[in-house]
């Protein structure tokens, strides 16, 4: 199969020019940047399109097993494919929790039969996400996990977190930390500040996040081990990460599209699709995150795709669960950042391709000859409206419902197979 006539953007190889790609046996066989070759194989005409490495989203909740009414591997992978995402890392807060190799094997087997894309599970750091006993990381790694995290159940005990990092490093597993001190803002539902007081909603201070970012970067400094901080939302937290990076600590981080594009102002009107953890923050935080992408302090963009059924979200702001979906709107969000904030598309693309691949130690994220042919074709000229009808997830909890999107994924290829096409 050939993809011809498109503009190839492959930040890992520093390519941003017209060219053709030859796919053979699920791998990228060749990238031709000078002149087109005659072929009698299948040709995909990519004229006017951007040809990108398939996206990697390192923070996704697929809800299977246990919460299939919110999402499952089939529906989640379909939404991902439509978003140009060819690899997801799925979080362990399933039921049962992915804290042992049987659950890992279940997810891996389900994904092998049902998923359109590559689904890589993350295992729990502690059994049952309880923050007390370490999980079977080694056996889970053998079964297929690529990272460990307790995600929203932040490991509160610093001693356990240290052991978790050391134990994970034994099996060469990256540790992903969702930083939240639950003793600060336990009842909070939005960013703490003047607006939360105005709206009569309990706040979650930036401090609740920053305290744990400090702790985990100090643990990384002391042990010399790597840590990945997920969905940073505060300018002060990002500053802690910058200082740690400057002094050689092995810390990396990701941010979400919603924290890059929305602020706490979106909570006015009490729309529960504006309720997520960490909460939407102030404009100055949002701008700091965007600058962090420009400067490279932010390594990755990840969606924290968190489906919740409509009847769960259709509650009071105080009672509705945290989280929004994001797989189908990831690339349009990135394109909007490129257009509105003058950040090179190639720089943004590193955040969803080669950077997460390197942090996770997985293949993919580039168009280098010989690697798996995960490719996304993006039409930068298309515009469309993201509606309930366009949602392929089982849940529709997006803060971007009704928004006009610029740029659209028109074709997604996973290991040489077309998994999405419009």
């Amino acid at each position, binding site marked *: 199969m050939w993809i011809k006539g498109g503009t190839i953007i492959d930040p890992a190889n520093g390519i941003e020019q017209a060219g053709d790609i030859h796919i053979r046996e699920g791998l990228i066989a060749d990238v031709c940047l000078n002149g087109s070759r005659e072929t009698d194989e299948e040709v995909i005409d990519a004229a006017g399109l951007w040809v990108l490495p398939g996206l990697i989203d390192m923070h996704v909740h697929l809800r299977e097993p246990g919460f299939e009414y919110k999402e499952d591997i089939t529906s989640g992978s379909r939404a991902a494919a439509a978003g140009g995402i060819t690899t997801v890392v799925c979080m362990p807060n399933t039921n049962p929790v992915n804290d042992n190799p049987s659950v890992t094997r279940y997810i891996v087997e389900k994904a092998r039969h049902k998923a359109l894309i590559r689904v890589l599970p993350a295992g729990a750091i502690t059994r049952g996400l309880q923050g007390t006993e370490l999980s079977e990381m080694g056996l889970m790694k053998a079964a297929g996990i690529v990272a460990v995290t307790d995600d929203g159940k932040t490991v509160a005990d610093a001693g356990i977190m240290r052991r978790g990092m050391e134990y994970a490093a034994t099996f060469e597993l990256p540790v992903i930390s969702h930083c939240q001190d639950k003793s600060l803002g336990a009842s909070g539902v939005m960013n703490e500040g003047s*607006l*939360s*007081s105005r709206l*009569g*909603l309990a706040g979650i201070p930036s401090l609740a996040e920053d305290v744990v970012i400090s702790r985990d970067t100090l643990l990384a400094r002391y042990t010399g081990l790597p840590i990945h901080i997920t969905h940073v939302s505060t300018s002060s937290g990002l500053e802690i990460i910058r200082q740690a990076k400057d002094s050689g600590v092995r810390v990396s981080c990701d941010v979400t599209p919603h924290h890059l594009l929305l602020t706490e102002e979106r909570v006015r009107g*009490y729309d529960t699709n504006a309720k997520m953890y960490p909460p939407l923050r102030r404009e100055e935080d949002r701008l700091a995150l965007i600058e962090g992408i420009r400067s490279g302090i932010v390594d990755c963009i990840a969606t924290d795709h968190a489906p919740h059924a409509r009847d769960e979200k259709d*509650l009071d702001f105080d*009672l509705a669960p945290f989280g929004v979906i994001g797989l189908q709107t990831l690339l349009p969000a990135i394109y909007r950042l490129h257009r509105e904030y003058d950040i090179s598309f190639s720089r943004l693309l590193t955040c969803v391709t080669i950077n997460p691949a390197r942090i996770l130690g997985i293949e993919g994220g580039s168009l280098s000859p010989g690697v798996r042919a995960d490719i996304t074709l993006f039409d930068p000229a298309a515009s469309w409206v993201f509606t309930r009808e366009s949602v392929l997830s089982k849940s529709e909890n997006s803060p971007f419902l009704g928004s006009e999107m610029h740029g659209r994924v028109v074709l997604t290829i996973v290991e040489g197979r077309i998994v999405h096409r419009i």
Partner: protein
Amino acid sequence: MNWSRKDVIAIHDLTADEIGLVLDMASSFKEISKRDIKKVPTLRGKTVVLLFYEPSTRTRLSFEIAAKRLSADTVALSASGSSFSKGETIMDAVYNVTAMAPDCIVIRYPYAGIPAKMAELLPCSVINGGDGFHEHPTQALLDMYTLREHFGRLEGLTVAIVGDIMHSRVARSNVYGLKKMGANVVLVAPKTLLPPGVETWGAHISTEFDPVIPEADAIMMLRVQKERLNERFFSGEREYSVFYGLNKRRVDMMKDGAVIMHPGPMNRGVEITHDAADCARSIILDQVENGVAIRMTLLYLSMGGTANVD
């Protein structure tokens, strides 16, 4: 000016003119309650549903009496004994009530935002009877009415609001309203009970009660909620009453003509002692009396009554 609002959700949304209009009109409604036959046919044929998802005696009774004096039919539903206790979501409950075509729903709710959402989605009028820590607009209007009735003005008055500002919808609505009407507001509380961003409210803030007392024309005491103690916002009732309670010693420090207010229900012996609550300065029962007039005014205005006050 004309009243063009279907709903009354938040003092924050009202203009000074609108507040002034409500206060002006309330006087004529107050007169009705002083008659021998306390009923006028103004809202005959209108249905008012009182949905109270939180315990309330004063506000609910006040709304019910107000509606009945205007000849509206009233139906009151409380959380216990309704399907809310069976796990029905609030919006389902609200849509079911709406299907029975009420003209106005008065809602009290433990979480912020539901009255605003109802106002947006429902065809009938919605009056907020207090939502979470958000707002309690009718309380603030009756407080402002009572102050204006007593002093003849709001502009230039200094009102101290004392206690749990953080969790108080009464404090929020009063601060917004009093500021709009040109009064000075002083908030008195320990730092743990001051909400984030309170410095942007345009009120003076003091963690000490005593220095504020001689300056205040009115001292509004807020109820101490026992659950805040469990959440460790302060150390205990004994210490609280020493530093933030209104007692005889503090009443004696008040300036001539200054008054004492409380939205109720009072915790006697905690935020206010008997000799403060029952002294000549107390206008607490005036507040309750005026509540009926304010709620009559709002029911009348939101159900399409014309404002005949220029």
